[in-house]
């Protein structure tokens, strides 16, 4: 039973982006603080080596301990901000995904995919048209073959029919060296 709109539906992408920007800035500030404290601690440790007075050394140790505690707190803060940042990035991705899916679903050609029956009919029709046209082409090919088979070559034009043509052909098949053209003409006479 729901009377109210889901609160995440009221969130805009702009708000999530602003949140991410703010978290990144805070995380960067925390990191800078941690780095500054680390440098400070290192410097004080080096300073401690140069001190001879035990009381001064003890005082320095207390200071270093305090700085270390501050650093630990800053690191924990940065980790907490990072975790929030991670979740905000995932929320932004979810918003983008939803918007993309909604946008694609509103495109006419993609919307029509919902009607599977109409799609099947359309594809069937396209396939039948293709088969019909292919049959027309193969029938035309068969007609060509049938007509060409009826034709027989005219031997008077394409064959050897005269007596002298036979003797010339026989001469071609002879193994003797080729005579001069004039000798060949005398023979044929």
């Amino acid at each position, binding site marked *: *039973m*729901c*009377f109210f*709109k889901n609160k995440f539906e009221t969130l805009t*992408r*702009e708000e999530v*982006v*602003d949140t*991410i*920007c703010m978290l*990144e*800035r805070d995380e960067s500030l925390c990191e800078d603080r941690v780095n500054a404290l680390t440098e400070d601690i290192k410097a004080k440790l080096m300073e401690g080596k140069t001190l001879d007075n035990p009381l001064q050394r003890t005082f320095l140790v207390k200071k270093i301990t305090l700085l270390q505690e501050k650093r630990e707190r800053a690191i924990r803060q940065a980790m907490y901000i990072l975790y929030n940042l991670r979740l905000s990035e995932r929320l932004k991705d979810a918003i983008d995904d939803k918007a993309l899916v909604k*946008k694609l679903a509103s495109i006419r050609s993609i919307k029509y995919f919902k009607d599977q029956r109409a799609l099947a009919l359309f594809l069937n029709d396209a396939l039948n048209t293709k088969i019909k046209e292919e049959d027309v082409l193969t029938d035309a090919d068969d007609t060509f073959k049938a007509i060409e088979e009826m034709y027989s070559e005219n031997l008077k034009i394409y064959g050897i029919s005269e007596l002298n043509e036979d003797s010339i052909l026989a001469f071609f098949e002879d193994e003797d060296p080729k005579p001069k053209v004039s000798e060949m003409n005398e023979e044929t006479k």
Partner: protein
Amino acid sequence: MCFKKKKRLGVTYIDDRKCLLLAAQSVDVLIALDKDELYKDRLLALQDSLLYLSPRENQEVFDIDQKIAEKIGDLKLILNKSDDIKDESIDKIITTIFVMIKERDAKELK
């Protein structure tokens, strides 16, 4: 049983105007984030283009305006992260926004 609020049909002039105004104001934030002023000129030109766009009650035009606002949001994220190094993706996104503004002009004429 769930009572759903009846959805308002269509886009109003006020919705589109808010979207464009917000986008133009967000560019101020981008200019502030650009510490080295590497993209200042292009961002100012972008802001001018956005301020002179006229709101419409056309759904297609509103969709483009929303996409422009999203791209400005992406720019905000990149400028927020990037150090002093010039990022190629920033130039690409700014160019994309200009192209989308031209597409919007074409849709307006239809």
